[in-house]
């Protein structure tokens, strides 16, 4: 049953026509929480202006993997990376000891599972990353905040109350606000960790639409629990299991004829 609906939503979508250019490439990536090895020798290429989905059963390491890209793990003691994640076209290794995690986070941005607006006004939430980068000019801030809110499909709903607290927004609006916040700084790669798992179906649909739209501007890597969602929004899909990358390919191919038996079992719902 599940395969049919997933496959039909995949088939109807046109193929990305532009030639594929790698944006980030993980190779031989292992990650350790203290002594526990949560990721094992992963290899993955994320193509520019494509949406790449990470799927897999709970606990397989999707979030852990995603959080390697913007060095989120550096915030906690005892964590260790092995291998590399190269960012193109600069061809720098984001995990290299000499690379400042703050510099990495200046170029990538992240949207979390639970909307986490700051205790500030809607405007200040979106302006946050710009202010952190030292932007002072009111005119520039206003322009970029408006553009980000428009891109996040939130402008029309909040333009009259930009200076109200962000907490007054609904859950779906808060999540789009977090997307606007992440967009305002013109990131090269956006990381989404189950961005719709705390939202209702309508809010989910609007976020999915947004993600599909955003890939014109930015490369996207998204973790999702929901296979229909992966099928709907992504161009490429990676299936992970127990810290390993089992299969990676074009979303339509992976969902219609997975090469790996484990992947097939997972997407047909026989396991997971």
């Amino acid at each position, binding site marked *: 049953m599940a395969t049919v609906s997933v496959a039909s939503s995949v088939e109807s979508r046109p193929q990305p026509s532009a030639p594929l250019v790698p944006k980030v490439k993980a190779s031989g990536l292992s990650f350790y929480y203290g002594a526990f090895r949560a990721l094992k020798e992963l290899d993955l290429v994320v193509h520019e202006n494509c949406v790449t989905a990470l799927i897999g059963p709970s606990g397989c390491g999707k979030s852990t993997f995603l959080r390697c890209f*913007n060095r*989120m793990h550096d*915030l906690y003691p005892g964590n260790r990376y092995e291998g590399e994640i190269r960012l193109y076209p600069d061809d720098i290794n984001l995990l290299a000891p000499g690379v400042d995690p*703050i*510099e990495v*986070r*200046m170029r990538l*941005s*992240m949207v*979390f599972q*639970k909307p*986490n*607006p*700051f*205790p*500030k006004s809607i405007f200040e939430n979106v302006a*946050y*990353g710009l*202010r*952190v*980068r030292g932007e002072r000019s009111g005119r520039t801030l206003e322009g970029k905040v408006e553009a980000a809110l428009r891109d996040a499909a939130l402008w029309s709903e909040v333009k009259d109350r930009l200076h109200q*607290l962000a*907490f007054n927004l609904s859950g779906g609006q808060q999540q789009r606000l*977090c997307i606007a*916040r*992440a967009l305002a*700084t013109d990131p090269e790669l956006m990381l989404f960790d189950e961005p719709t798992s705390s939202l209702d179906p309508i809010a989910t649909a609007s976020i999915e639409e947004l993600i599909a739209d955003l890939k014109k501007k930015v490369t996207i890597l998204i973790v999702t629990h929901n296979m229909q969602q992966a099928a709907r929004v992504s161009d490429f899909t990676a299936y992970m299991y127990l810290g390993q990358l089992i299969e990676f390919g074009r979303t339509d191919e992976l969902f219609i004829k997975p090469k790996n038996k484990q992947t097939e079992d997972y997407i047909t719902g026989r396991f997971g």
Partner: protein
Amino acid sequence: MFTQAQSPRLAQRRARVLKERAIEMVLFLAALVSVFTTVGIVYILVKESVVFFQQVSIVAFLTDTQWTPLFDDQHFGIMVLLSGTLTSSVVALAIAIPLGTIIAIYLSEFAPFKLREIAKPFLELLAGVPTIVYGFFALLFVTPILQWFYPELPGFNLLSAGIVMGVMIIPYVSSISEDAMRAVPMNLREGSYAMGATRFQTAVKVVVPAAFSGIASAYILGISRAVGETMILAVAAGMQPNLTFNPLEPAATITSYIVQVALGDLPHGSIGYQTIFAAGLTLMLFTFACNIAGHVLRKRFRETY
């Protein structure tokens, strides 16, 4: 048969209900004790103050610039004592609020886990030192040091008492502020770090605003402590009534006046004795106003993360 099987269980339940009732009763009585104490204090203060205000007009009490209840030429200007209270409190808070906040930010956002576990009990120890010890510390240690910089400083002065009082209040401010900041969920911090913010930016721009209502309560508690502090001022600030806002002068405060008179041999019922209650009521109204302000702040800026 049916009733026989059920009855022991029913009896058990009845016993349990009775036990619950008894526990509830004990808890209620305990709560009642504190309510009665508060009511009793207010009752005495108000009753005795009424006697006082039958002899001294409220206008004179609030506007007179002298406080000489023990002299022949009696004046009852509470401003004289209030000025000492306010001046010493401002000095204390000028120390306790910035330092307490900085310590809280450091412990909550920067300090390694081990250091925090060591530093916190030490800070709380600071709050456990008897205030009389602080008083002598101010008089015999801090004042001489201040005199070294400013030789004209009198032996009793509000500055030295205020500084030491500030040190005493630091742990109240830092401990409660830190708890409030630690309670800010990690995903809010991660949101800030993910935007490329530094630790400092995250602490100041996200964590402090998110913990604002808790931090405000810490400040309010600090203010109440400063206004109500007695021994340090009685020992180190001199006890002469002095209408001044200059911390370099000696002055009595409401609290130090109350100890002075309460320990003296004034006959009960005399107007001099009655002043204690009027001064005490003033102090209580002041702290009460602080608490109300704190309550309003907490309501307005309730954590919404």
